[in-house]
């Protein structure tokens, strides 16, 4: 393996919510490349359980990022196929660090993954929330209302890829969420600003980690 580290990311794109996550993941994929990670993207219809399990069996994979819908014990891939489920295949995360940009997975799937040998699991205990403006969202990167929640959630993988620990990544993301909340609370030029602050607060409350906080990639 020559010390090479792998980054595996799922980016389904079959509804508006996961499409936003997909587009906002591009900068993370680019960053992983510049940091020397060998990146595999399970994009769109490739985000299946069979593909995920096949790639997770490769020991080189050190960092796994899920974009997908979630419940307490599952993460989905393309067309809401369950690709990771507590009690079924989380042992494949052994020795890996996980970030799940999904709803609700932290307490059950996160804890179960750590019990099965994962080194760290960052996720949300509540729904991941954001405001979107379809008029601006012809391209999600141009949607000013969605940006704060994605910028702050992208801090997690970016901080990890830069060599920091799980607890540092969570702390940095929460700190930026609070800073942006206070910015959006004082904006008077957009009537939607309070809703953006509402979502930032919600994601801040939901974000957390399982496992040892000092773990790095």
């Amino acid at each position, binding site marked *: 393996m020559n010390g090479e580290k792998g980054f595996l990311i799922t980016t389904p794109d079959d509804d*508006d*919510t996961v499409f*936003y996550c997909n587009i906002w993941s591009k900068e993370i994929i680019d960053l992983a490349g510049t940091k020397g990670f060998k990146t595999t993207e399970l994009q769109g219809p490739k985000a299946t359980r069979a593909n995920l399990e096949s790639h997770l069996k490769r020991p080189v994979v050190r960092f796994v990022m899920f974009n997908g*819908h*979630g*419940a307490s014990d599952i993460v989905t891939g393309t067309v809401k196929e369950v690709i990771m489920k507590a009690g079924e295949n989380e042992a494949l995360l052994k020795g890996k660090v996980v970030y799940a940009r*999904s*709803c*609700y997975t932290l307490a059950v799937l996160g804890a179960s993954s750590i019990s099965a040998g994962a080194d760290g699991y960052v996720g949300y205990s509540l*729904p*991941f*929330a*954001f*405001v*979107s*403006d*379809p*008029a601006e969202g012809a391209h999600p990167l141009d949607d000013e*209302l*969605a940006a704060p929640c994605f910028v702050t959630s992208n801090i997690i993988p970016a901080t990890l890829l830069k060599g920091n620990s799980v607890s540092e990544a969570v702390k940095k993301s929460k700190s930026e969420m609070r800073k942006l*909340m*206070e910015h959006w*609370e004082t904006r008077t030029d957009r*009537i*939607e600003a*309070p*809703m953006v*602050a*509402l*979502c930032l*607060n*919600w994601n801040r*409350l939901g974000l957390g980690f399982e496992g040892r906080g000092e773990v790095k990639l």
Partner: protein
Amino acid sequence: MPFSEDEAQITLERIRDMPRGIKLNLGSHGAFTRDELIDAINTHSEIGELVVRMQMAYVRSFRERVDE
């Protein structure tokens, strides 16, 4: 978790300020317009309860930050 009429009114006041085209995306639950959220709160649906929880959590957070 059930919510009180006061909590519903506080949340509805916030939601009514949303332009009609804007959506609140709640992950696996879906994405909702202003009118859908108002209906969800008025009918005490699962989504209505979730949005009221979000608003009341925000109110608590705001008060805590003011008190710091």
